[in-house]
């Protein structure tokens, strides 16, 4: 069964003087249970692609289906309620409070609709996608246990279930004895393992990890990948991660190489 379908996706950044085609026509799909690496040099468009896969960004062209749900459609649901006004008016509203308030009141129904659409998208991410970022994944004021529990709490999972699953997951990533440590007391590798446990906690359809080992030494990198591979098998969960590190690539069962926003090879190794 297909978890993700990428259909001729293009992402163009317009915010500098030159247009940047960060992703330039990609067609891909991912099956359930995959353990796939997206490889490419810095600036090749890995992060841009992963963000769109995670519903964090909207493709300029084409579409992405996550579990059959269209990311473009969800974004259009938000954007269509965004009122467009000229920059001059915008500045006037910004510096004069009363017209801004009146405008706010007039636009309230739109604002409410937009926020509703946005809530839907955030909830969609909460329930379907796990994220592991390159660094600073965790809330510094929460312990490993609390960081892992937080997403389940947002899902409304009962306290007993939360506690049970947190212990299981942190045990599985080898941190059964560091449950009550805050991130500042954990090493970089340990922090990334907590992030993996948190990504799994919400029982998502797949986990996206953008260069999760970029800040780690080779031994901890190996260790983190072993854990991810194990969980991929145990929990039957799809892992898609990006990297430009050859050692990481070796572990992947599918390697997608991109350059200048285009797929140049897509190999299954096992």
């Amino acid at each position, binding site marked *: 069964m297909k978890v993700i379908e990428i259909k001729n996706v293009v992402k163009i950044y317009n915010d500098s003087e030159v247009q940047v085609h960060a992703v330039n026509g990609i067609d891909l799909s991912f099956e359930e249970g995959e353990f796939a690496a997206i490889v490419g040099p810095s600036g090749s468009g890995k992060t841009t692609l992963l*963000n769109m896969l*995670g519903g*964090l*960004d909207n493709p300029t062209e084409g579409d992405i289906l996550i579990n059959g749900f269209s990311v473009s459609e969800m974004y259009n649901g938000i954007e269509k309620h965004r009122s467009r006004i000229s920059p001059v008016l915008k500045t006037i509203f910004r510096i004069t409070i009363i017209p801004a308030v009146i405008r706010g009141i007039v636009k309230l129904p739109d604002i409410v609709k937009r*926020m509703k659409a*946005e*809530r839907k998208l*955030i*909830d969609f*991410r*909460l*329930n379907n996608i*796990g*994220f592991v*970022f390159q660094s*600073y*994944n965790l*809330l*510094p*004021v*929460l312990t490993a246990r*609390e960081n892992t*529990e*937080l*997403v389940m*709490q*947002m*899902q409304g999972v009962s306290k007993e279930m939360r506690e049970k699953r947190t212990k299981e997951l942190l045990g599985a990533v080898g941190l059964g004895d560091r449950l009550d440590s805050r991130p500042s007391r954990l090493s970089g590798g340990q922090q990334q393992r907590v992030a993996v446990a*948190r*990504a799994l906690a*919400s029982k998502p359809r797949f986990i996206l990890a953008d260069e999760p080992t970029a800040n780690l030494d080779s031994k901890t990198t190996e260790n983190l990948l072993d854990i991810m591979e194990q969980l991929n098998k145990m929990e039957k969960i799809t892992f898609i991660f990006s990297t430009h590190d050859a050692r990481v690539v070796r572990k992947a069962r599918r390697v997608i190489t991109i350059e200048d926003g285009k797929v140049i090879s897509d190999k299954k190794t096992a």
Partner: protein
Amino acid sequence: MNYIKIAWRNLWRNKRRTAITTASILFAVFFALFMRSFQLGFYDHMIKNAIESFSGFLQVQHIDYQDDPSLENTFICTDSLINSIENRNGIKAVVPRIEVFTLASSGNQTKGALVMGIDPEKERKLSNPENLLVRYRMTRDVMTALGKKSKLPLEIKNKLEFIKNNSYTNLSTIAIDMDIEEEDNQEFLDIIGETAEIPGRYLKQDDDGVLLSDRLAKYLKLFIGDTLILLGQGYHGTTAAGIYPVRGIVRLPNPELDNKVIYMNISSAQVFTGLKNRVTTLGINLDDNSEKNMLAYQELLNNQITDPTVVVKNWLEFNKVLKQQIEGDNQSGQAFMALLYFVIFFGIFGTVLMMIHERKREFGVLIAVGMQKTRLAIIFVYEMFLMGMLGVLSGIVISLPFLYYYHVNPIRLRGDLAQIMENYGFDPVMPLQWIDMYVLWQGLIVAMMVVFACLYPLRKVVTLKEIDALRV
């Protein structure tokens, strides 16, 4: 893990900044409370001095008396009028008075004076001049005699300088002015008392003598038993003249009045002025001094009095000077507080902005993994609220002992400051008002500032684009 707990922990991520912001709120509340207590206490003090124990909160007057306080604008005051007011519930005192300006003289000295014709018994309930009777006078002779007393230790003698030339109604005030403990120095105070004591008594009901205010007595060089000569204009342009023995000397807290008041029996004053059964005013004090109650009684009494030439006025009407003084001071005080709070507001606002800015990436991560923006906003509001409340509550808690102390032990001013206050006509004491609803107001104002300081940052949170926040 509840969200308030997260907020609390977030608050202490940057301990120093939170401490500084909290402290700024604390000091703002502290200063505001202190200043406000001083102001309110001072207004209270002024009203006590000038209204409660002098003019009364309400006065029955001839309708033209306020504009032209002459003997022509007086009214006939019968016992039945006094009784009918006195017998109402909630009335504390009703005192008939004749107030008239005359010339007072003795020997070569002559001075304008204010004769106050009073009913000695009734007056006890309002200004009670008996309490003001001077019992000790620190004249030069007294000081010399005290200087020779071998029983007085040197340190006490040195402090005699503080009370030189003053007059006192009791030993406690002498102790305060000398800056010594009354209990520990009872023995010495007794010696000072014995040496400085003067005779003098309050007016009897049919007395034909007078009480002289202290400064006036000093100016006229009159003492108890001496004779005072009064000369002025009486009712319908007649000449008023009389000779009166001095029965006692009184010290009025208001120095301006202390320079001119002469108390005499109201019947003597009626004879002196030819007013017969007329009076200038009928002063009234109430059990409940609130403005609301005062206005209610004013209306009640105005309805009772049928004579169209007689009205009841409240002190805000007949003492406009004091009213304006209080209002003016109140406004400048509030302007100062507004300024203080304005500065604090920007302190809070700056902290909030920094907090948002520093945590942008963290917010991005939280929203990416599924936290709703509204929830994030709520956590943020909790944080600000906790910080605000911490500042307000600690500000109040720290203020209370100070406020209480200075409420119980009013600051007595000395030297130039005291002189300034006396020139304005007030006893140089700075009492603090004890806590009241205004404490709650301070809390509310700071809470509102926190809310306002949060608005812009909250908008930032709600409109945050997670993709941009993650790129930080």
